[in-house]
Structure formats: C-alpha cells, structure tokens
C-alpha cells in the first residue's frame, strides 16, 4: 500500500470514530450496562471468595478476577463487532451495500478500518468507566505501566479477530436469508468459550482444552488473562497464536467476500 492508500483507510477509521461519538446517548447507555454488570460481578465474586483478599482460586485472587472482567467485558462489549455484522447483513439484504461497493477501495479493508475506528473508541470508553468502578471498589490492578503497551497490542489483535469472525458471518448474508442465528451462536461462544463471563481456568480441564483450541478464547480470554497475570513468555505465545488465527480467519473473510460479491444484489436487484 502506498501513502495515499493508508491515508484513505485511516480517514475511514476517523470518520467512523466521530460517527460513534456523535451518538453519545447510545454509547453511554451501552457503557452503563457494563458498569452495572461489573457491579453485579463484584457482589457475586466477593461472596464466592468470602471477601478474602488472599484466597486464590484457579490462579485468580478476588482483585485479579475483577480486573480480568473489566478487560474481558470491555474488549467484547465495547468492540463494534456486533453492530458491523448487523449493519452489513442488513445492507446486503436491502441492497444498501451498493454505494459502498462502488468506491475505489478494497471493501474488506473498508469494513475493517471502519470497525477498528469505532471499536477502539468504544473499548476505550468501556475500559475507562469499568476501571473507575473496580478501582473504587477493590483498588488498582496488579500490572506495571511498562507492561500495559504489550496488553494493548493483544487487545487490538483481539478486536481484529472479532472483526474477522463477525465480518465472515455477515458475508454469509449473501447465501442465507438471515444470519442472526449464526451471530447469536457466536455471541454465546465468545461469552462462554471465549472467557468473557468466566476465565477459562475455572473450567474442567477437558473443556479448557477445547476452549483453547477454538479461536474465541483469543478474542477475550487471552488479553484479559495477560492483563492480570503478565509474563513476557505468555505475551509472545498469545500474540503468535492471535496472529495465526488472524491469518486463518482473514483468508476465510477475504475468500467468502470474493465468492459473495458475485452474488451481490440477489436482493433488491
């Protein structure tokens, strides 16, 4: 890609970012939900741990698990993966995909950058609000400032993975009348097997093994676990596996799109 091509995709991300800030009310409501959910989790896990600050269950202290949840909730709920797949499937159904396809850019890259633009903004807002609550309730996370940039890298890779997965599902809209079912299953997979609600280390060993083989855990569990138990070796292996999944899902996303594009406007010719 040359310089102007970069400028093109960055501008798309910027416009999408300002668009997500322009609907302030919906951004706030979404994040209020995260704060409420985290408050409920705070009460739940405090009871489980019997309010002990030294007890360790499956490698987590009470403070650790709460900061884990701040990260896992923000990466998933804050990312725009869901809305892109809703919008794109709808656009495919209604034929609204036509103007976006008639511009001189790579359509997958266009979707990617517009998603990343808003996902970074939304995850950022969710993290700030969630962190404020948990900091107030149990104190700061156990991570040094120098380690945070590494976590940030893994968070961005998690957002990219979510995008690729949801994008591929939306593209199925070219073949299926309704992709809501696929989306619903994916949401739940990320909630459970992705470790958004409970860290994978709480699962029985066999389930943990399955979850670690599937890509979902790299969308939420991996960066969140790194956030509370940072080691350089886990960073390297996590980022390597995230990258491998990005390549695999990337090939699927581009491939599906190339096939699907031949079927454009099957609806609303």
């Amino acid at each position: 890609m040359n310089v102007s091509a970069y400028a093109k995709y960055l501008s798309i991300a910027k416009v999408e970012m300002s668009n997500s800030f322009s609907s302030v009310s919906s951004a706030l409501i979404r994040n209020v939900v995260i704060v409420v959910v985290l408050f409920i989790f705070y009460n739940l896990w405090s009871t489980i741990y019997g309010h002990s600050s030294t007890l360790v269950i499956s490698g987590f202290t009470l403070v650790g698990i709460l900061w884990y949840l701040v990260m896992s909730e923000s990466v998933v709920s804050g990312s725009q993966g869901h809305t892109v797949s809703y919008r794109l499937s709808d656009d495919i159904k209604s034929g609204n995909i036509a103007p976006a396809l008639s511009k001189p850019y790579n359509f997958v890259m266009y979707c990617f950058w517009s998603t990343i633009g808003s996902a970074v903004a939304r995850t950022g807002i969710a993290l700030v609000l969630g962190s404020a609550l948990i900091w107030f309730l149990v104190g700061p996370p156990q991570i040094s400032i120098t380690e945070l940039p590494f976590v940030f890298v893994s968070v961005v890779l998690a957002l990219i993975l979510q995008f690729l997965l949801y994008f591929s599902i939306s593209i199925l809209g070219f073949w299926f009348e309704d992709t809501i079912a696929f989306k619903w299953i994916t949401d739940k997979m990320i909630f459970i097997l992705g470790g958004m609600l409970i860290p994978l280390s709480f699962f029985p060993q066999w389930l943990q093994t399955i979850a670690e083989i599937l890509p979902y855990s790299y969308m939420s569990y991996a960066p969140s676990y790194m956030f509370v138990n940072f080691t350089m070796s886990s960073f390297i292996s996590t980022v390597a596996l995230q990258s491998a999944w990005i390549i695999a899902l990337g090939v699927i996303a581009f491939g599906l799109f190339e096939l699907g594009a031949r079927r454009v406007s099957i609806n609303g010719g």
Partner: protein
Amino acid sequence: METIISVEKLRKVFLTKHKEAGLAGSFKSVFKPRFSEYVAVNDISFDVKRGEILGFLGPNGAGKSTTIKILVGILYPTSGSANVLGYTPWKQRRKLAYRIGTVFGQKPQLWYHLPAIDTFNLMSRIYELDDRQYRKRLKYLVDLFEIDYLDVPVRRLSLGQRMRAEIVASLLHEPEIILLDEPTIGLDIIAKQKIRELISKLNREENVTVFLTSHDMDDVEKLCNRAIIINHGKIVYNDTLERLKRDYVHTKRIEVKLAKAPKTLVFPGAKLIKKDEFSLNIELDQKRGSVSDLIDYLTGNFEVADINISDPPIEEIIVGIYKK
C-alpha cells in the same frame, strides 16, 4: 462522437426461492427448496456517447437497477459483455471507480449522523485527491448546487437537500460519467426540478456524460437527449426523445379538483378517465387539442380549485409501443 459505454447482449439471471403457503410449506422449503430463474436483464445491447444525457426508463422491476449495477461493476452478469471507458466493470471495478460517479437514490452514501462536509472530506481521501484541487472543486460544486448546509448533520436535512449533497459527493473526483439510479425518487416537484436543472447545467459546463434511470417520464422529458425504455429485461425503445414524444407520448394527464360538482365535459381530444364528486381525471390527445386551450375551457366552465398536469405513466407508453 466517442462511444464510452457499450453493452453487448448483456444478461443477468437471478435465482428466486419459492415457498408454499403455511407451516408445511415452510418445512418443505427447508428440506427441498424450490428455485426458479428470474431473467432481470435479457440480452440487451446499447451504446452511450460522450457528453450524452441518456434516460434509462422502465417500470419497477424492469431491470434498470440491475443494468446500472453491472455497469458500475458491483454485479456480475450471467453472460454478455460491457465496456465502460475501456474497462470491463466487474473485472476492473476499482480502476473504473476513479473515473465514474454513482448516485443511488434510495441508498445514501452520506454518513447519517455527521455533516455532509465530513463525507466530502472522506471522499477526497478515498479518491486520493490533491488537497488544493479538492478545495477548489468543492467550492465550485457547493456554489453550483447551492449547498449552504455543509456543517448540518445529514439527518436534519430535507430529502431534496440530501439528494443535492449526495450528487456533490459523487462529483468531487471529476468523473467522466455519472450514473444516477432514480435520483428524483420521493422528491416534491420543486426539488425534482432543481435536481434536473443542476444535472443539465453540469452536463453543459463539464461535458459529463449522464446515465440516469427513472420511472418518471418527466425526468427524461426535461433532461435527456435520448431515451432507452426497458420492460421485463428487454429494450423496447432506443431513440431520440423527439421521436418518442412524437410517436408515443402525445397525451397528457390533467387532474382537476373542483369546488362544485362537475358538469359534462365537451372538449376535442379530451377523454374522461375518472370522475367523482369533486374531481375529474382527463386524458388529452395533444394532436387534437392543446393543454392551454383545455385549461381555458376548464376555468371558463367549471369552478376549478386545483389543476395538475402530468405525462402518462411509463407503463402506458410501453403499451403504446407494443401496439405499434
């Protein structure tokens, strides 16, 4: 004149899924789906010359949008060939995109929550425009299209204002051809007129080739040099507008609202299509009587509250073409 769009035996077939009524039908369609072929565009051929304003007319579902989407390169044809500015659209979509502009009347490209200027700036990046040139171009178009609402969020604009901004967004990169799919749909008469004036001015000043689809005969009459009429995927007319009007469109529809119940109507060439308590719907054969004489007659003999004059609907013109 140079031919810049040429289409040869273009054909597009869609598969449509069928489902029998009721729950049993739903089950059946899950396990044994039944498809039928729907020919949207049926072996059509035509050319467009540089600088032309071509009206592509037809009723809903005739294949207009399908054709335009193939020409833009977002739809693959089933068979046949098309050449736009030397490119095969569906194979060289991105290269072609730099040289054409598209407006889809019912499918907005402006960001809904943001002011139009944000979309314009984004377009300047997407089309990789030089900054100084872009500023100059923007100023020219904003003046031409009278856009004095650059920083108002698009959701607050009227439909006419929005459409003008949509057209500006597709002209920033100085395209050689602009393809407009139903640009006046849903607009009121004044806004329609405005859009038509602007398109025609643009064509005069920049020699932009205009390819416009519509189901509104008025659009074509006020704007185009040539009309292609398409019906059930086939071209039924492809010639000058003069010939179309001379041979097929010699009637006008006159709708009259009356303050008092109507008397009988006696006027040469006027046929009463519908009559109720306070309104008349008249078809006037312009070979036998003129519109202005009819209006004089109406205002002289009736208590007229409102008059609306329009062309016959496209479906009727097509019936006329088939009859010949």
